[in-house]
Structures are given as structure tokens and as C-alpha cells.
């Protein structure tokens, strides 16, 4: 399934990546090389085969409902590119 620059632009938008027009064509070629390799999957006979999400088919352990996490605000805020009054700052969000 070959893709064109429009599909690349769409995926880039979903992934919030910027793809300039001058890199788009080259990127598209690379991605098509990868997808061509990946397309070998279409040869596989997978009729009736259940998808395998985890190598070990085990189940989810559950945690008791108790508060145990410490307050880490003062440890994490120094990593924030912009913060004020304990909040992370971003350009104004309009719903």
C-alpha cells in the first residue's frame, strides 16, 4: 500500500510533527520503502489466528485502593519548560 505526501501530511498532523514541503517527498519515499517491506505481512495466512498483544498471556494484577504516592510537585516542576503557581504553562487553549 503505497502512500503519498497527503497521507504523510495527515499522519504527521495526527502525530503533531511538522513536515516541510521540501522534506515531504523524501520522507514519503523512505516510508514507502518501509511499508513495502512491511507488506510482506499480507502473505501470511492468519485466518482464525487471534492477535497476540502480550508475549505472556497473563492477566492484570490489581492494586489495593490506598493512597501511597508522595507529593512530587517540587521535584518535577524544575523540568517544566514553563510553569507558574504550581501549574504547567502553555499558550492559551481555546476549546
Amino acid at each position, binding site marked *: 500500500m503505497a502512500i503519498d505526501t497527503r497521507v504523510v501530511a495527515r499522519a504527521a498532523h495526527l502525530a503533531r510533527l511538522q513536515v516541510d514541503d521540501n522534506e515531504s517527498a523524501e520522507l514519503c519515499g523512505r516510508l514507502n520503502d518501509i511499508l513495502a517491506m512491511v507488506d510482506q505481512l499480507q502473505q501470511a495466512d492468519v485466518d482464525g489466528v487471534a492477535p497476540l498483544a502480550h508475549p505472556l498471556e497473563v492477566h*492484570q494484577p*490489581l492494586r489495593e485502593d*490506598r*493512597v501511597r*504516592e508522595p507529593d512530587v*510537585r517540587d521535584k*518535577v516542576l524544575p523540568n517544566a519548560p514553563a510553569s507558574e*503557581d504550581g*501549574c504547567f504553562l502553555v499558550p492559551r487553549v481555546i476549546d
Partner: protein
Amino acid sequence: MSQSSMNGGWETVIGLEVHVQLATESKIFSASSTRTGDEPNRNASLIDLGMPGTLPVVNREAIRHAIRFGLAVGAEIGRRSVFERKNYFYPDLPKGYQTTQLAEPIVGPGVVDIELAPKGNEGGQGEKKSVRIHHAHLEEDAGKSLHEDFHGMTGIDLNRAGTPLIEIVSEPDMSNSEEAVAFARKLHSIVTSLGICDGDMSQGNMRFDVNISVRRPGQPLGIRTETKNLNSFRFMEKAIALEVARQIDVLEDGGEIVQETRLYNADTHTARSMRTKEDANDYRYFPCPDLLPVLVSEEEIAALKDALPELPDVRKARFINDYQLSGYDADLLSGSVATARYFETATAASGDAKLTANWVMGELTARLNAEDLGIEHSPVSAAQLGQLIQRLQDGTLSSKIAKQVFEACWNGEGDPDRIIEAKGLKQMNDSGELEKIVDQVIANNPAQVEDYRGSDDAKRKKKIGFFVGQIMKATQGKANPQQVNQLLQQKLQ
């Protein structure tokens, strides 16, 4: 199809998506507190913040709460449920995806029965209807974007991020706002009865998204819109009316409905589209590789089922049966755990269920509504109301004085008995003392007595009111009206 759902030949189809915040101590995927009201990001753990390298672990109680809900609506419980990632970017979504369920939810199809308000000619019985639950799934809440106080920027507070929610998705089984509100109220009643949610809608702990479409009868479903985040029953009712009217207008003008998300503004009673440009989301759901399938055993389901608290429908039936209440009254009183508890406590004290029901639904509810208080915060306790009603019953108080006592009690002046005593509000039941006052009034008003005696029966009925009024004035309302009437009729003969 009831009459009210028809609107100029249009039929309305409504489905609800309800977010219910689960009453757990800690978050769904981290052991940080779900408490609200703290400073920003004080309850946001490394996991809630989406720090690199952190991983989720599932809170058992969140799973159990979801199962409790499923059992309450007769749903099949997913013996195996799977968490998936819903991928999108938003600043209050720290990981860039919401962990939720899609293909294999914890709660499968179920049913919720609703009863509408009686239409007067139905003898206290409202129309009944069943609304199907499509499924309910577990997911995490997002954080909050704060727009004030950041000089044109937005502040992100992730304290709420990771708070457990169940999203309940109904089938489009409702055909007007009345049914939608009745369904919403019923869900509120179920989750608060179960104790899985505190039901505080003002805090957003229960939020309603309403899917609305209209069509001509017999036509396929119309294109629907979703009005999001309604957090009161009243707003929901108004928002539905507004959107139905808008859609009908658009269609009657030959326009088309655009599938969109709309935001209702309660202050202005207007709504607007949330996305102006075409930006169809593609959430790229896939099973969360950091979490494994959640398995629920038959034993666990059975144990949870056995331990379920009384559910609204059961309580309602019990109220009808034990207290001889009408279906609608029973519905109102059994709907919330707090109201039901209040009613039962007050009835135990008063000994008169019907009168207690009237007071709870009448005077008390009006007063609570006026001050925007929940019944659990009522200044008049259930025991106090019960005592008041008892005094009304045994003739100590007239209903008029009872209202005064209620008011004093509301204002914190103490128990009804104490207020009656302190203010000397006891109804005058001593006939000797009352007789003297009656005689006095008759003696003081010879002209009115003359007039009364000269009238026929029909006129007398009206004219006796003058004497009653005089007596009540003289006794400051403490006279027993029945006794006054009797005495007057004897003495004016």
C-alpha cells in the same frame, strides 16, 4: 410514542453518555489521592504526570465499582476486559493518550427502568419506560486547563488526571428531554445508592453528554450532534430543548445537520459548535501494552452481587408497600440515598408516612432548593422534622403554627418541642379557656352576630369566617380551628 416527543411532525431521538467519577481513595492507575481542592499538581504523581518510564497499575476498587454498576443494571459483566489507548494531543492529557476501554468493556448491555412524572389523570402513576444501556467502560479522567490568572497563558493542573471514571453509554432510547432527565436522575440514584459515586454534579462528578437527532417518523435516524458536559438536570433539559429546536429549524429551512460536538452555555442559554474547522479525530485505539487483560472471577461477581446495597427500584417498591406512597412519590423519595434515609428517619419519629412525605417533598424541598442545599445538609434534621409532624398529629400545633416552628428550627433555634415551649406556641386545646374567648368575641360583635343569625346556611358558612379570624387573632393562632368551628356553631345557633 408519547405526544410530547412529537414536535411539528418531528421525532426526537436521544442517547446519553454519562461520565461517573468513582468514589475511590486513589486514582485508577496510580496510588495518588483523588481528593479535590488541593493546590495544583499536589496530587499528581509521576504516573499521572506522564513522566518518562512510568507505568500504570490498576486500582482494584475501580474495577469493583464498575462491576457493582453493571450488576445494578442487570448487565453482563466482562469476565475479561481490556484497556486500550485513545490517542490525541491535549495539554490536560499528559501521556498523549487516554487509557480507556473500547472493544472489551467491563460492563456489557443492561437496562434502566424510568418512570415519568404523572400527568394528573394517571392517579399518581407516571408513564414507565426502559432505557437500554449499550455498555459501560472504565477510563481515566483528564486534568484541568485553567484560563484565569495566567496573563493570557493557560495553566495545567493534573490533580484530576487519572481519577477513575465509568462512562455509561445508553442506546438512543429516549424521545424527549423529560425522558432523558428521568434517565439521568435514575442513573444518579443508582450510582449514589451503590456508593460508587458521591453524585455531586456541581463538582462535575457526574457529567452528561447528550446525543440528539431528529427525524420524520418512520425515517432512518438523522445525523446527530453531541452536546457535552452538562452538569445539572435543569441545564440538560434546557440544552436538549435548544438543540432540538435548532435542528428542526435547520432542517425545515432545507439545511443539513453537521455531526459535531456542541457546548451549552447555561448563563446565556446558547450553544456553539466546539470545532469550527474540519478536524475529524482519528484516535488510533489499540490495546494498552502496559496493561494486561483484567479477569473477573465468578466468585468475585457473586460476592459483589451479594453485598449490593438496596437499589432504587427495590427501595421504591418497599416505600409503596410499607408506607402506602404513590409510585411517583415513592420515586421521588427513594431516588437519592440521602432523601430516602431522611424520609425514613423522619417517618420513624413522626409515625405518619404520608404527612412526612408531604413535608419532605413540600416545605423541606422548597426550602432546600431556595438555598441550594442538599438534603444531607438540611438545617432541620430528620428527627426534628419527625417531632414537628408528631406535634401536628397530636394537635399540639396547627399547620400554620407548624410552619412557624419549622422556620425557627431551620434558623437553628432548637428542637420543635423546645421552640413550642419557649415561644408558647402550643395550640389551645383547653376548651374551657377557648370557650371564654369565643363568648368574648360574640359579646363584642353584636351586629355581626345579628347578621349571621339572619342568614341562610350557605351564607353562614362564609360569615363564620369573620368570627374564626377574630378568635385566631385573640389566641395568636394557637386555637385549634376544628374546636373553634364547633364552639361557634353551638353558640351562634
